[in-house]
């Protein structure tokens, strides 16, 4: 960087080369009607999606609209607590705020009865054995710790069923 050339009256004054202007803004997140119903159900240890009246796809967590057809989704659908690993990622990199021991697996899980996967952790299995099509089930926190958050599910673990057929989840990878 070239040196600044200051007018004579400013020479000898210590130059400002940087300053900090910290900013913090706080927000209240609005879940909305559909996601509120989903989160309330989670606090009751239930998983609830919504079906599009047009394409019949079931979305979870629901946001009140079908992202394909742009129509309101109103019919609620109770979902199983088991599903299929569609894709996954072995996390090997430390990052700020990390609580998990490395390496661990974050996966997209297509809950039975739904048409869009949710993201969650896979545990109780060595990370290098997690694979696409693996059948898994939710492990919930103790009942007195349930709340309106996906953290009410501690993680998913293999449920011992044979791998799902590719045809059952090929649209979600």
């Amino acid at each position, binding site marked *: 960087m070239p040196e600044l050339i200051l007018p004579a009256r400013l020479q000898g004054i210590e130059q400002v080369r940087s300053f900090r202007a910290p900013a913090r*803004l706080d927000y*209240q997140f*609005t879940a*909305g009607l559909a996601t509120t119903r989903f989160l309330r159900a989670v606090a009751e240890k239930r998983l609830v999606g919504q079906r599009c009246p047009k394409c019949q796809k079931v979305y979870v967590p629901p946001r009140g609209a*079908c992202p394909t057809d742009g129509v*309101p989704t109103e019919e609620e659908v109770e979902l199983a607590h088991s599903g299929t690993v569609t894709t996954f990622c072995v996390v090997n990199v430390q990052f700020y705020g990390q609580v998990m021991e490395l390496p661990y697996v974050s996966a997209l899980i297509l809950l039975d009865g739904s048409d869009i996967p949710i993201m969650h952790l896979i545990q109780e299995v060595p990370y290098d054995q997690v694979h696409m099509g693996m059948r898994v089930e939710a492990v919930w926190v103790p009942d007195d710790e349930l709340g309106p958050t996906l953290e009410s599910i501690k993680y998913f673990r293999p449920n011992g069923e044979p791998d799902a057929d590719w045809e059952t989840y090929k649209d979600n990878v």
Partner: protein
Amino acid sequence: MRDVAIISFAQTQHRRAVRELNEVEMLMPVLVDVVAKAGITKDRIDFVCSGSADYLAGMAFSFVMTLDGVGPWPPISESHVDMDGAWALYEAWVKMQMGDVDVALVYSYGKSSPGNLRRVLTRQLDPYYLAPMWPDPVSLAALQARAALDAGVVTETEMAEVVAASRRAALSNPSAQLRGEVEASSLLSEEYFVAPLRRHDCPPISDGAAAVILAADDVARQLCERPAWIRGIDHRIEPHSLGVRDLTRSVSTEQAATHAGVDKDKIDLAELHAPFSHQEVILRRALGLGDEVAVNPSGGALAANPIMAAGLIRLGEAATRITCGAADRAVAHATSGPCLQQNLVCVLEGE
């Protein structure tokens, strides 16, 4: 130039805080309404353009979620501006000039309630010299009002009259947030909020959304008995450093008005996006509007000010009055940035 018209307009009933709905849930009824009013189905729409601000939601790419309300499958032609929807309308109008789009949907929304709006909007100035001072829009507007009062451009009585007229006009606007019969003299007896502004000189904080359907040439004539034709549209911007601007006039509005052809013929009504009372006086002057022009029959932004939608609403309100035959020639105005920094002027006409 291709003739393009506003053929349909819809908006929410604006409220201080829509706590029970997320953005897409708030927007969706407006999208359904605007499409129905145009008498079309969604597959007729060739282009979608939206306006919103991530800062309001406190979330990056927050506008993408509202596309759920449009139904972007099979893939659609779509664009977004981080600006008021009036500028999304401008982009759609430009796109329609190129000839391959006949029908466009323009929407915008603003949910200010998740954050503290005055603090959020401090982020709209430069981050080096001004941001550390957290200059909020009310304080900046107060500086402008003080400059305008000192220059004799406006009086406090005129400001109160603007507010009283807005409250009265909003009595017939079901979407308005603030309305009522008030006398300017009683407004003047209230205390200052940020001097020389009283609380009523400032816009309400609103959550809301709006949408417009544009159609070109014969398509507009087929779909609408009396389309509101866009005869001129232009927008201009001033420097963001307040110190180099003359805050007592709106040069960018004057220029946009000239290019949009405001003075080519008589104007019946004007919908001006003036969030602060003194700004309406500055804008009337910049647009050369005489006393015979009905200004803000909807109540304007002092009656409801959903950020990012309040400008598009001015275009929609003006167009609605042409479509229903109440006016032949109207001017609609939208603003963006502190102290009327950027201004869009649109001339609408019936046939």
